[in-house]
């Protein structure tokens, strides 16, 4: 695993971001004050369930929020631009594609069914790399080879429906790369794919990240995917980042009860015949102001102060922070659930061996 030092430069910084939506006459706070640093060349994973706000966060970086969404406060600093101040499509065109590109979940809806895939990639090449004619064609073929497609000349002339799901996702990745972006956002890129294809696509993304020196952001709910590709993990719940750290820190030294719950509820940690660890209840209503910790009503380790005041980030290590009152010196000492303890043990063993 690459070691990230403080010397790595910050490519994107989100500060105190609050995003709201007006829905059916009421206001829903989707992102409740998030600050996040993205370092150049790293692979960051944003883990959360539906309703946690992970997609909204990424869409706001590209200016793709729905019409009824708006940034209430905060800044997104990229390259000395404040992306929250962008109002016109023109301003966003300088960012989208060129600086930040996105790969989404369903490749069928990202591709134009009426155009050959070669033309779709070539469009981007011509637009963003200022190449024309033959040069653009050669560049397109190179991209197709890079994403692992064979018989590129024949495939260039084919239509999206002639490809399988995994191949289509590769084409979407090729289009994203055609723009030569600095940041690549992958929003659940493999959720709709079979597990054998998923492994291949993730391998491909890792390889491309190194080759093109990209900074990648993965949005997913699948911890297995995260284990494979991420350097750092940010865990989101109800519009807030509740824990952030390096991959092995989050997996084997998590501090927030929600992270514990996420990992423990994996079937791999369950024993046959016994109950899987599960969290009671459902995520909170984001239409209302949440007092204290959003996870408190479902948290078996909740303290009284979790219902009163929102916990700040407590430092666990240089790179690992968690938003939980359990890390406060005044809090009682709590052990993570049993199943998790053996998992942590195994992790420490693996760390020693590697």
């Amino acid at each position, binding site marked *: 695993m690459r070691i990230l030092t403080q010397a790595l430069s910050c490519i994107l910084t989100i500060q105190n971001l609050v995003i709201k939506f007006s829905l*059916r006459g009421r206001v829903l706070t989707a992102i409740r004050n998030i600050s996040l640093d993205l370092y150049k060349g790293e692979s960051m994973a944003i883990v959360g369930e539906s309703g946690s706000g992970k997609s909204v966060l990424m869409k706001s970086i590209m200016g793709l929020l729905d019409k009824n969404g708006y940034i209430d406060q905060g800044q997104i600093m990229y390259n000395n631009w404040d992306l929250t101040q962008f109002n016109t499509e023109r301003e966003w065109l300088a960012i989208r594609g060129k600086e930040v590109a996105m790969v989404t979940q369903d490749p069928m809806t990202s591709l134009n069914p009426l155009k050959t895939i070669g033309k779709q990639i070539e469009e981007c090449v011509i637009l963003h790399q200022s190449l024309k004619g033959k040069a653009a064609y050669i560049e397109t073929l190179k991209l197709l080879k890079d994403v692992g497609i064979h018989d590129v000349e024949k495939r260039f002339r084919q239509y999206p429906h002639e490809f399988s799901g995994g191949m289509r996702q590769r084409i979407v990745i090729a289009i994203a790369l055609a723009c030569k972006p600095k940041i690549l956002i992958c929003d659940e890129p493999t959720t709709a794919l079979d597990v054998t294809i998923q492994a291949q696509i993730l391998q491909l993304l890792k390889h491309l990240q190194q080759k093109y020196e990209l900074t990648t952001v993965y949005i997913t709910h699948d911890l297995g995917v995260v284990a494979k590709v991420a350097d750092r993990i940010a865990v989101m719940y109800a519009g807030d980042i509740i824990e952030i750290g390096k991959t092995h820190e989050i997996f084997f030294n998590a501090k927030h009860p929600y992270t514990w719950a996420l990992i423990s509820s994996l079937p791999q940690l369950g024993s046959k015949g016994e109950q899987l660890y599960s969290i*009671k209840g459902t995520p*909170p209503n984001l239409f209302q102001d949440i007092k204290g910790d959003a996870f408190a009503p479902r948290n078996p*380790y*909740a303290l*009284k102060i979790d*219902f009163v005041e929102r*916990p700040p980030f407590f430092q666990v290590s240089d790179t690992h922070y968690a938003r939980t009152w359990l890390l406060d010196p005044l*809090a009682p000492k709590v052990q993570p659930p049993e199943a998790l303890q053996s998992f942590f043990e195994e992790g420490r063993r693996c760390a020693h061996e590697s």
Partner: protein
Amino acid sequence: MGMYSEEINNISHRSREALFEFAVTDERQAEETAYSNYSYWRSTWKSFLKNRIAIFLLVGVLMIVTFTILQPYLPAQKSPTEIYLDEQTGLQARNIAPNTEFWFGTNSIGQDLWSRIWAGTRTSLLIGCVVAIVEAIIGITIGTLWGFSRKLELPITQLYNIVDNIPTTIVLILMSYILRPSVSTIIIAMCITGWVEMARFIRNQIVILRDREYNLASKCLGTPDYRIILKNLLPYLISVIMLRMSLAIPFAIGAEVFLTYIGLGLPISEPSLGNLINEGRVLMMSPELRYQLIFPSIVLSVITIAFYIIGNSFADAADPKNHV
């Protein structure tokens, strides 16, 4: 450490420690979900209300309809069919321009246009509404069977092909020759040809809905077909049915006008918008008599435009994607 809020600042250190005790989690509270107060019909109504023009026209149409019903009972109303004689000459009061006695004037044989127009509107609206309702009933029944039953699909498709391809005009002409021209003849004739559109539309919607997972689930539970249609499929179609009915009304009224033009409409003794427009048409050239065409045309236009706009606004409002 984080920022302390006001209330906590005022609490002593000892009390702060007390906050770091475990809280009792209420499982019930965890289960109480975000109760979304979203009701489909209420949202539709709210969306519809946002469209000022549609509301204005809806009120207008309701006023017109109410007025046509009440008009005969108002004081000082004349009979629509009686031929009035000019008091001075004793001859028929023909082609009198609108004045204080005859508010809309009289026609070429001395009948009061004001009461004729309202009587005609009554008749036309009656035709329009009855046709829309009957078409809907026949169309929904046949369309549902067509879309849902795989056995009946082929025979009904053939029936549709045949009926759809016979020119409507010919059927209407035939009906008018076979039966005496009257309000019921026109209604029957229009219903015989009009159900096909509604049937095909309902059939398309049913074909889309019938293979959805919740219908499979109902089948697995042993629900008989009629209940699947009534409780699973038709409730989704109510808004589109209402839309089509609201557009069918002006269409039927317009069809009646058309039939009158080609001589297959109602007898002249029964006033209808078609008859009135037809009578007024021949007088279009002379400026003093033009009022006989203008008044019924305005009424017809207002009703037609109003229904179309109301129908389309309702369709937009009923689309869940437009619910914010």
